């Protein structure tokens, strides 16, 4: 029962983006289209799950004092793998996400989970936690990206979903739209909490 909870908590109750406000840079930067959002979410989930697995396996060997640098090296290795695989198989997506793939290294969600969870828990729990958090991150990205893509381009995943009479609000897919949509969504989450 409690094992299932490790998985589901990341999706709503401890959602890394909306509730804990972690990893905002990639969320705002790549949420201009749903396609980018799914790509970024998948990349981050992969790194999150594998670094959680690895860190939970080697946690006994790392001296406490140098744990943060060790975690960063583990995470950076998995990010490098993702970077190279994406460049080889999905070059267009890789180009769209650009700088934000290597920057997964400094995404606070991943180091945060390593420090707060994988460094203290066993393998099974760490995998579930990584999947849950990754899924929560991806879902948050998709929610923001859907709003921005529908309002800003009248499209969803590249297909027109609004009548031709709808004039796209360009600002939604430009930089300011990211901040405005995020602010309003956070306000909504607060409303629900009370």
């Amino acid at each position, binding site marked *: 029962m409690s094992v299932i909870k490790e998985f589901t908590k990341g999706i709503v109750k401890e959602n890394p983006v909306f509730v804990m*406000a972690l990893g905002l*840079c990639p969320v705002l930067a790549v949420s201009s289209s749903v396609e980018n959002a799914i790509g970024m979410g998948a990349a981050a989930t992969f790194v999150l799950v594998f670094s959680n697995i690895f860190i939970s396996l080697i946690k006994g060997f790392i001296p406490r004092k140098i744990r943060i*640098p060790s975690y960063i090296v583990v995470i*950076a290795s998995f*990010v490098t793998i993702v970077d190279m695989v994406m460049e080889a198989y999905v070059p267009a997506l890789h180009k769209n996400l650009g700088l934000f793939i290597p920057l997964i*290294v400094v995404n606070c969600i991943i180091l945060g989970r390593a420090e707060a969870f994988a460094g203290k828990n066993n393998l099974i729990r760490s995998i579930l936690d990584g999947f849950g958090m990754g899924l929560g991150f991806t879902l948050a990205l998709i929610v923001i990206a859907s709003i921005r893509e529908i309002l800003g381009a009248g499209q969803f995943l590249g297909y027109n979903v609004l009548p031709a009479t709808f004039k796209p609000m360009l600002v939604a897919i430009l*930089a300011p739209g990211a901040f405005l949509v995020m*602010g309003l969504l956070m306000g909504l989450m607060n*409303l629900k909490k*009370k």
Partner: protein
Amino acid sequence: MELLAKIFAMAIAAIFVQNFVLARFLGLCPYIGVSKKLDSALGMGMAVIFVMTMASTFTWLIQTYLLVPLKIEFLQTIAFILTIASLVQLVEMIIQKTAPALYKALGVFLPLITTNCAVLGVAILNINEEYTFIFAILNGLFAGLGFTLVLILMAGIRERLERAELPRTMRGMPIAMIVAGCMALAFLGFSGLKF
């Protein structure tokens, strides 16, 4: 003269047109987290300018004289993040020994800079854009200045927002995001500046 014009164009681009926070979405955590008070924003800004300039210098050297000759460019991410982490540690120790007053003012913010994506971001951008050594350093400096500028502007606005009457649900993070959105709109106006 031409060089000077190039440097000027780069400064305008890095500070206003392609502002790291508002146009490139880098360094948002400290931008939202440390912008509640004006003096801490100033301290954070100074520390970031310093680390970004230093990081641009060292990562460029490492890329050009270590990674490229040895053909191990794929280790870029790992090498850069380690460089930045040790650099931040070094800077922290040097400031602590030589300028205790400054260390006290910056103290809390220094270790946080390692995970500021603007620092790793500028290092990778310098390599991707194939800047020369001098321009890489200058780009780091200007990007840091741009970050500090919006951080201080934001802190000024948020100090006033403290006393504003807001709906309870919008207090704190949500309104900070909306303010950032308005600032990004204003900075969008600079995108007409092309050199």
